[in-house]
């Protein structure tokens, strides 16, 4: 059984101009020890869907799902208190901006011990030992000294390590990393990704990586789910996705990568992601799709699982189609 099993997740936000559907019937399934990457541009609902699973959305959001199971527990029926027992313990999350994710008023050590205190029955001294152990685990030199440092005294990469230490403090079964390296430099990014994969392998922790960077996906993930305008358009294993994308959006996105360019001009996707007021009636990608026809403009395709992959498209590209 999958560790996290979400079926038909929909998130709507109440705005002054009516309901806005940020996430549209998405299925997510993460096995224990899995590394799933969720890829999409801004506005694709990739962060919102995971925040919904964590129960961290503001009150303006309406979350509906046919099923939302984590480790056999139904997340939809939990009370706030029961949810708090799971979130931060068995399931935790790190965010893009390490500088603003930590409270600038308290030392790193205080915040780390706080995270331990909330979920584990440890004594004061045991908490301190565990905190040092955690900082060591995430590769922070001189952990004892760093405990009394404030977040502004550490660099972005160090703060992200502290965030990871806090997230893994209670040995979670699932870690959701929301653009964990976007704010960091490439050499630091490489260190952090390495650390996350190491934790994934050594501590039996499933990893959900939310990102927009195809390079990061290719180097870390095992499976990839591509989201577009709140919908999941494609899910495949990472090798297959990069070798033979089935959805025209994925295909176009990969072709637009500068490193895959053959000429001086990149093949680009015309237009922008649809917003709240210009959602097309048929397939959401149809206005920008080079293969779209009358059927795509009229009917919305359903997610069709076909053997190992699932594609939300009327005319999925065949497996043999290669990326131009």
């Amino acid at each position, binding site marked *: 059984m999958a560790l996290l099993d979400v079926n038909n997740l929909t998130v709507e936000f109440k705005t*002054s*101009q009516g309901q806005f559907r940020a996430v549209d019937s998405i299925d997510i399934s993460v096995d224990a020890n899995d590394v799933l990457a969720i890829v999409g541009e801004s506005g694709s609902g990739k962060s919102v869907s995971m925040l919904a699973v964590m129960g961290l959305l503001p009150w303006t959001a309406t979350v509906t799902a046919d099923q939302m199971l984590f480790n056999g527990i139904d997340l939809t029926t939990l009370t706030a208190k029961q949810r708090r027992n799971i979130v931060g313990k068995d399931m935790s999350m790190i965010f893009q901006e390490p500088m603003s994710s930590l409270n600038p008023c308290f030392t790193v050590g205080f915040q780390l011990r706080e995270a331990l205190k909330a979920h584990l029955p440890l004594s004061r001294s045991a908490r301190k030992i565990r905190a040092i152990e955690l900082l060591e685990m995430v590769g922070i030199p001189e952990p004892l000294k760093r405990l009394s440092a404030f977040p502004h005294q550490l660099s972005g990469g160090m703060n992200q390590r502290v965030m990871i230490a806090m997230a893994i403090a209670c040995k979670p079964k699932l870690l959701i990393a929301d653009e964990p390296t976007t704010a960091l430099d490439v050499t630091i990014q490489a260190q952090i990704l390495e650390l996350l994969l190491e934790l994934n392998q050594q501590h039996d922790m499933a990893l959900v990586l939310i990102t927009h960077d195809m390079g990061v996906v290719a180097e870390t993930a095992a499976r990839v789910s591509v989201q577009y305008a709140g919908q999941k358009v494609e899910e495949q294993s990472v090798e297959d996705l990069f070798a033979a994308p089935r959805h025209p959006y994925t295909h176009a996105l990969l072709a637009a990568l500068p490193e895959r360019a053959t000429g001086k001009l990149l093949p*680009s996707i*015309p*237009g*922008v992601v649809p*917003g*709240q*007021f*210009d959602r097309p009636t048929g397939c959401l990608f149809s*206005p*920008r799709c080079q293969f779209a026809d009358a059927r795509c403009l009229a009917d919305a395709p359903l997610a069709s699982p076909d053997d190992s992959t699932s594609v939300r498209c009327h005319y999925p590209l065949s497996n043999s189609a290669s990326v131009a």
Partner: protein
Amino acid sequence: MAIDDTQAQSETGAYELQRPGRFREFWSYFSENRGAVAGLIVFLSFILIAIFADFIAPYSPTDQFRGNLLQPPFWQDGGSTKFLLGTDAVGRDMLSRLIHGARFSFFIGLIVVSLSLLGGVTIGLVAGFVGGWVEVMIMRLMDVILAFPSLLLALVMVAILGPSLINAMLAIAIVLQPQYVRLTRAAVLAELPKDYVTSARMVGSGTLRLMFITVLPNCLAPIIVQAALSFSTAILDAAALGFLGLGAQPPKPEWGTMLSEAREFILRAWWVVTLPGLAILITVLSINLMGDGLRDALDPKLKRS
């Protein structure tokens, strides 16, 4: 044309339809705050009354009806519908005086806010742009003004200049000025490092152009809010000065002056004291409510705080 025009077209699509105009966005935030809308309605009627006072008021504010001294409002025994809100000690119609008083208060608010706004914003812009010792001097001077209790400072100034409505307004404008200076300077300092200012420098904008055309329009939101709120402060301070006999002089129907004239009748004729006070209260309250709504709508940083 190599650059794909159709691409740019579909890129826009219905994009601008979905973004409501500036005013509609402003109104949607503003109207969320019911107190603000109520305040706006009261304030608008206050302005209308002030403008059309000559037509609305049943009598002249200085006409004395010697046969009807201290007549109570019409719903009390002894009152008549001839004088809806009664008369004062020399037989002037209260309603007419209050209506004309609105004109004074509006006039005071307008002049004081314009004076302090113009001076304060200019000084604030200079402080923010020039920096260095000029900025230090300006800001310390403003701190000194702020260190005095504002009414006391205004009192001193009026005492020096001589009691009259114009001098009272001048004094209040000077007392209110530092708030604008500080606000403008803070807004300027927040805007200066932004890329569009650098961009304006790149194309060679001079300092004056940067100050008034590039930066100032982007600092207006908090200044407008402050202007609305200090409108009420001005009315209140002018009333206080009038009450102390240092503002508008009798027989001008200024609300504060009316209050002070009526002091001795406080036990015998409640309406001569209560009604001007009520007028001040309602006006100031409505402006403050409206100012809060403005703040919600214009200043996203202060929203819900």
